[in-house]
């Protein structure tokens, strides 16, 4: 009644959330999740708890996602369609003409603090979703797939300069979004 197949199927939406976040394309995401579930079903094994099963499935999914990203290379890096090429990423922060911060950056508290809360992760995921598709993909390749910058450049045939500009923008956008929706909440 609680077969290996059922456990896998029950986690489909969980996997799909990450696949969509990483690929920003529903059809690609569905394909990657289907491939993941098929691969998992072909080698049944037992897990002590759901967390271990999730970790195992996400591990398989990550490989499928890297395959998909490689396969859709040009579209993934999205350099042709990038809309904000002329924009300076530091525009998300106000600086005076002499290069000083217009306003000192807010105190976010201890950087080592345990943020491990469902709510924080929801805000983080929502902020990531709001990144432009190409930036979001590259950013999550770094931060979720844990690829090195060199690996990303190689997989997608990107120059380091192009990659760094996109990651830089993504990080500053994310910073602004987290500040607004998490670190300032309560002080508004």
């Amino acid at each position, binding site marked *: 009644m*609680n077969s290996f197949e059922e456990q896998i199927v*029950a986690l489909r939406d969980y996997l799909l959330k990450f696949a969509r976040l990483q690929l920003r394309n529903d059809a690609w995401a569905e394909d990657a999740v289907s491939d993941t579930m098929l691969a998992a079903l072909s080698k049944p094994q037992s897990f002590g708890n759901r*967390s271990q099963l999730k970790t195992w499935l996400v591990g398989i999914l990550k490989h499928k996602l890297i395959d998909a990203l490689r396969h859709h290379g040009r579209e993934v890096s999205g350099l042709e369609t990038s809309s904000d090429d002329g924009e300076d990423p530091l525009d998300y922060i106000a600086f005076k003409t002499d290069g000083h*911060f217009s306003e*000192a*950056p*807010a105190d976010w508290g201890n950087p080592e603090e345990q943020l491990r809360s469902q709510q924080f992760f929801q805000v983080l995921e929502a902020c990531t979703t709001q990144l432009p598709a190409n930036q979001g993909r590259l950013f999550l390749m770094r931060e979720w797939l844990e690829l090195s910058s060199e690996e990303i450049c190689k997989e997608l045939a990107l120059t380091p300069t192009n990659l760094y500009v996109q*990651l830089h923008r993504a990080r500053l956008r*994310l*910073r602004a979004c987290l500040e607004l929706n998490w670190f300032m909440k309560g002080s508004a």
Partner: protein
Amino acid sequence: MTLPLMRTCREVATILVAREDRVLSLADRLALRIHMAICDACPRFENQMLTMRNGLRQWRNYTGPDESIRTTASEEKKF
């Protein structure tokens, strides 16, 4: 007068963001250390970057509540 290793806060912010994705040059590392020692604002920005790093690390290692499979499977069927 411009000293070779003096950076503005704006330049230092750029270095601090770049540090997340690439190895800094020796000049950047030195300039960063010098600036951080005399600036009040940039250490706060650095803390924000480190908080993001920490938050992202926790997020990618988080798998959700660690219930037993049996309980959760039956709960999820209810929708």
